[in-house]
């Protein structure tokens, strides 16, 4: 209900004012003395004493770390964080594996950021879908895109789109982590003993570990309850994680590998020796690569004879097509892979390329791997948020990133006048007041620590831009065009659209409810799998 003329009583100081509560975020005591009592014309110029309003799109690690740094560096900044789900934390909540609770400790820091009076969380508002991006523009001085990578790359092979026994690892991860979007994935893990994961990143290893871990080991984690039930029924005993390149080029990190190699009751197929470089080449590798290669060569100490489950890393194979059983046409039977060869000039470079391997007959070398369940895990993919083009942003579809200058300032091929000279003398053009951080900035790679560094870089760029002395800072709107209201300006539109935004206090209620549900089941938390369930807590 909008009451433009209703008398307003400030709930903090109980003073009555006839003004519409424009900036309720600010306690009167904190405001410059003149501002609250006199009607102000916000549309005049950007005033020194009014806060810098920054919208952050996305509440994952990138958004939170950027907000954290920005709030610490710019003490006039007020950050409004928009999130499409009613709950925050993005991939920290829905991507980090449930058996890695220590990685989720970053949420403590995010929670601390959210207690700042200069921070507002606005959940359950999907920008670009149910609220146009353009409705943000008049109220903000800067917008930071940190919405990550909401889709995943496809293989483009026949059979990939099958609805049974063929899954995207991203969706599977979302499913066992309780992401509402994939609540109804219902993967069938009872089709047979063999699972094949294509892709050799950490997501692939996460999927393998969840499939191979005993259900009892997962029971105390915050894994979704329905996922536990399905995993308990799983018949999968063997997981093959297949990559198109060699062990030196694999994308997973050593921690995830070590974990899988140490999983009780799970053996590991030794990797053929010829895939590794000679001792002296190995010892000359950079430290991280060397340790990873040594661990791969060492393998697992678990005895295959006594281990009920097993896994393997299969290298130099590219998937060609999926095959279904001739007897039971709805059952996946095997996957056909084509063999690859590493560039013979530099086979042990981390950036080594592969070429197709041909037999002496001239035919492509192929291999069939039995598979009853298939996962593709070849990387996440960022998408353009609908409405980006209204802000002048030309999303780079090919790289799946928002074009930026490496510091997070969004760039455009159109000359905006906000130019920066590069070390090589060429000019790039910035879109003033528009920034990006995280996976949408540099592509979907890296761990939380890399996203943190990256988000800090962007926040530092924003802070540096805001402190531009002598000339006007590059804000989103030219002086006089911004209301400077931030969320207070957007709120009326959100309410007009009939949306139900969630606040940080709302999230805390959902959080408490989830923890309570979890406590009853003896786990850390039991997530709500559906948005409606989350909102029900608040009603």
């Amino acid at each position, binding site marked *: 209900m909008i009451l433009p003329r*209703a*008398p*307003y*009583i400030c*709930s*903090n100081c109980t003073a*009555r004012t006839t003004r519409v*509560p424009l900036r309720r*975020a600010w*306690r009167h005591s*904190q405001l410059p003395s003149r501002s609250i009592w006199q009607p102000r014309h916000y549309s005049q110029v950007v005033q020194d004493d009014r806060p810098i309003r920054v919208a952050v799109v996305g509440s994952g690690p990138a958004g939170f770390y950027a907000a*954290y740094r920005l*709030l610490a*560096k*710019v*003490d*006039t900044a007020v950050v409004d964080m928009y999130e499409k789900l009613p709950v925050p934390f993005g991939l920290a909540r829905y991507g980090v594996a449930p058996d890695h609770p*220590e*990685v989720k*400790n*970053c949420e*403590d*820091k995010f929670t601390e*950021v959210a*207690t*700042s*009076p*200069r921070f*507002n*969380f*606005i959940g359950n508002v999907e920008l670009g879908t149910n609220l146009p991006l353009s409705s943000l523009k008049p109220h903000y001085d800067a917008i930071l895109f940190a919405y990550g990578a909401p889709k995943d790359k496809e293989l483009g092979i026949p059979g990939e789109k099958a609805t049974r026994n063929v899954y995207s690892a991203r969706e599977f991860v979302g499913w066992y982590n309780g992401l509402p979007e994939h609540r109804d994935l219902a993967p069938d893990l009872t089709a047979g003993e063999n699972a094949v994961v294509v892709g050799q990143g950490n997501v692939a290893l996460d999927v393998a570990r969840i499939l191979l871990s005993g259900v009892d080991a997962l029971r105390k984690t915050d894994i979704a309850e329905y996922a536990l039930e399905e995993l308990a029924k799983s018949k999968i005993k063997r997981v093959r994680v297949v990559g198109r390149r060699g062990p030196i080029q694999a994308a997973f*990190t050593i921690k995830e590998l*070590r974990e899988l190699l140490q999983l009780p009751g799970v053996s590991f197929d030794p990797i053929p020796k010829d895939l590794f470089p000679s001792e002296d080449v190995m010892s000359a590798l950079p*430290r*991280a690569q060397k*340790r990873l290669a040594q661990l791969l060569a060492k393998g697992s100490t678990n005895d295959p004879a006594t281990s009920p489950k097993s896994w393997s890393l299969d290298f130099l194979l590219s998937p060609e097509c999926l095959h279904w059983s001739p007897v039971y046409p709805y059952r996946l039977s095997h996957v056909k892979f084509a063999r690859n060869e590493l560039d013979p000039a530099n086979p042990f470079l981390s950036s080594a390329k592969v070429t197709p391997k041909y037999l002496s007959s001239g035919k492509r070398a192929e291999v069939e791997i039995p598979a009853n369940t298939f996962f593709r895990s070849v990387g996440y993919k960022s998408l353009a948020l609908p409405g980006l083009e209204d802000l002048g942003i030309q999303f*780079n579809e090919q790289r799946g990133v928002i*074009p*930026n*200058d*490496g510091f997070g300032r969004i760039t455009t*091929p*159109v000359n905006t006048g906000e130019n920066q000279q*590069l*070390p090589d003398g*060429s000019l*790039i053009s910035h879109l003033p007041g528009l920034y990006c951080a995280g996976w949408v900035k540099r592509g979907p790679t890296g*761990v*939380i*620590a*890399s996203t*943190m*560094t990256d988000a800090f*870089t962007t926040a530092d760029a924003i802070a540096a831009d805001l402190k531009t002395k002598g000339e006007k800072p590059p804000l989103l709107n030219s002086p006089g065009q911004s209301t400077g209201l931030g*969320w*207070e300006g957007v709120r009326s539109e959100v309410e007009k659209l009939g949306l139900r*935004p969630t*606040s940080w*206090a709302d999230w805390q209620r959902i959080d408490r409810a989830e923890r309570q549900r979890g406590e009853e089941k003896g786990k850390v938390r039991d997530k709500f799998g559906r948005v409606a369930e989350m909102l029900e807590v*608040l009603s």
Partner: protein
Amino acid sequence: MSFWKEACLSLRQAVPRSRETLCRSPSKRFLSTSYAAPTSRFIGSSRVPVTVRGNILGSRSWKAPEAGCRSFSVTAGVQHGHITPPKPGEEINITFIDKDGVRVDLQVAEGDNLLDIAQANDLEMEGACGGSCACSTCHVIVEDPDLFDKMEEPSDDENDMLDLAFGLTETSRLGCQVIMSKDLDGLVVRLPTMTRNLQASDFEPKN
């Protein structure tokens, strides 16, 4: 508009609604002040002022009255700052060299780890995983190789995380895994700079 209707509307505005994000209720408002006062940061160690360090939070505070809200490091210090004050005569000297090259000399007690010490003293060190050796954000570089050799060997888990650290060196450690002991008296550690240089791959084909 009748008197009652108007009164009700006023009341409605006056009572914070559950979905009220912005108008923080009084209890919430003092959340930040319920943290320990900023001075408590120095409880755990006596800080020898070497250089006046630039306040990254800036001096022109928009909200000067509420000291507790100004700095996150204050809260971080409190959160992770479970460090014990050194007993007289048992202080261990440690020097941090921060990202700007500024040396901070501290006297700490035996048994505290470098992450806690750094956070309690408002140094710019993150501990994204809360000090559980599951990230690489508390990476430090030991300046003296001899002291590095005196330390206990890093575990496999620590080395695994260090592999992912920015600017890894031969004498890198994770702050959360280095526990202060008498042997490490005079330890000097550097916080790696995380600044990133522009790379050609950062740019689109330029127009």
